């Protein structure tokens, strides 16, 4: 099964590399959006899939990251620095926000992040001197590195894909490190993790802060991709959307966000016929899936593969 998964990942990677050569400009924009949103969903998967906490502020973190880059780059700050600043800022905000919420149980983080989304929207809308208010910020420049400009759509796609690969590898490495194994322990059995002496609260907080930081970095790429940002783009709607990506793909599976984001980006395009009813259908699909297979598409796949695999061979490591 491991070989199968590795083969599928390799095939997907090759496809991601050659796909834009066959696509029209709008198609390239869409898959760039996929790469950017996957980064945000990857972060949310840490919070939701590993630490088991619902965050409804991932969209707000994407917004904070996007505004950080849109405000810093025009005043001469190099993109790389602004990108790191976006990640660091969201890490700090996530930590401060999660600290009180995770002191108590009952999914309080969900409510606190829900309220936080509203707060971020209000700040972005009201502080016109800084954020341009409802008119947003226009003409966010695409960066160039050592003479290689990402201004062209194709170049920006490869840049986004590269960032996705780097961040995904970093997350993968983190989850494999002795320290990151604590996150897996949180997902598998939080009570046992606690009894083994893990400070589960601290690791949950850490997962949330790192997840938020990835959201900020996704936002740092979102701003130059769309080149126009406004407060309305980062409301609760985006947070819900990211949450559903993680769920649909399969929360707690490393590659879940990749699949979920692909569906969330492509499905509205394929369902153009359905127009306004698209979200209704999507919401219904999610509810049906939650009732029959809460572990998402990858969970469904795993179940199907297990059903076909010969018995006894599946010695789970």
């Amino acid at each position, binding site marked *: 099964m491991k070989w199968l998964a590795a083969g599928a990942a390799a095939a997907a990677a090759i496809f991601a590399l050659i796909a834009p050569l066959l696509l029209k400009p709008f198609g390239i924009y869409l898959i760039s959006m996929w790469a950017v949103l996957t980064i945000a969903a990857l972060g949310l998967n840490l919070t939701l899939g590993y630490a088991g906490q619902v965050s409804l502020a991932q969209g707000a973190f994407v917004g904070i990251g996007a505004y950080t880059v849109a405000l810093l780059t025009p005043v001469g700050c190099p993109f790389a620095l602004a990108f790191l600043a976006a990640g660091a800022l969201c890490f700090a905000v996530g930590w401060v926000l999660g600290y009180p919420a995770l002191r108590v149980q009952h999914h309080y983080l*969900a409510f606190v992040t829900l*309220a*936080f989304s509203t*707060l971020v929207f209000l700040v972005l809308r009201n502080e016109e001197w800084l954020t341009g208010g409802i008119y947003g910020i226009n003409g966010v420049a695409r960066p160039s590195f050592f003479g290689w400009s990402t201004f062209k759509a194709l170049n920006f796609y490869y840049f986004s894909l590269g960032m996705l690969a780097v961040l995904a590898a970093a997350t993968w490495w983190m989850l494999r490190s002795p320290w990151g194994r604590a996150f897996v322990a949180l997902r598998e059995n939080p009570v046992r993790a606690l009894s083994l002496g893990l400070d589960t609260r601290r690791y949950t907080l850490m997962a949330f802060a790192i997840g938020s930081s990835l959201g900020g970095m996704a936002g740092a790429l979102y701003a130059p991709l769309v080149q126009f940002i406004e407060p309305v783009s980062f409301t609760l709607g985006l947070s819900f959307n990211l949450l559903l990506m993680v769920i649909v793909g399969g929360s707690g599976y490393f590659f879940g966000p990749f699949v979920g984001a692909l569906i969330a980006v492509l499905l509205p395009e394929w369902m153009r016929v359905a127009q306004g009813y698209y979200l209704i259908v999507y*919401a219904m699909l999610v509810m049906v899936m939650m*009732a029959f297979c*809460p572990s998402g598409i990858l969970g469904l796949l795993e179940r199907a593969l297990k059903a076909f695999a010969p018995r006894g061979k599946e010695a789970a490591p």
Partner: protein
Amino acid sequence: MASFFQLLVSGLATGAIYALIAVGFTLVWQTSQTINFAQGEFVMLPAFFVLAAMNAGAPFWLAAAISIVVSIAVLGVLFKLVVVDPMLKYGVLPLVISTIALSLLLKEGAKEFYSSQAQPFPALVPAADIDILGAVVSTQSLAVLAVAIVTVVALNLLLNRTRLGRQMQATAQNSTLARILGIPVERMVLYTFLINAVLVAIASILISPIYLAKFNNGDTLGLAAFIAAIIGGFNQVRGAILGGVILGVLDNLSAAYISSQYRGAFPLVILIAVILLRPQGLLGRVEERTI
């Protein structure tokens, strides 16, 4: 001072509506561990039932009655049977996700099938202003307060003075023990869903004349209900009432005296303060569930 009194009364009226929503939310949470993220949309929807019934020619009182009955059927029975029951075995998280999807479904449904524009909604009483101690108070606020108080008192009598209410309390406190004592636990859980449906329908009819009936009303109302429930104590009906009233009054006063632009931010500040200083809520007790 007169304007302070005016703000206080209208804040109490808003707070009373928040309280109704928060009480329903708390009841459902206690008996079935369902954190209903669609609670705000549950409040948005009955107003559209009223409008649909009135479009069909029914007078307001009849339309309101129809709306409450439809709410019981759809937001009570159907919600429990179709959404909650199949999910309970997976635990809290999938159900939370499912109610989030449901909130999206209801919101988009109201937008697509009725209208994306805010709809005017008939008031309970003819609009007029009454002079009380030099302050001008609208009859609407008073009517809202009166209806909310009657509803809460009736609910309290039901929960504390009747056999049915005591059975429901037992279910909330310890469902296993309640089952051993011969209480039909499943039916009691269903009843709390029905009560929630009635409460949100009443709240909807009370608040829609003020906010107009709009598909995205649920966003703010749902958040207000969660925060009210947490402020008061997640496990107490009295707490939810207190939380709702505090939130409504503070919301109105802070919008008038501090900043109206950041009106939506004050609940967050209160929420974080309560979580930091008294995580079990003002009236809540630690790790215990009672009605």
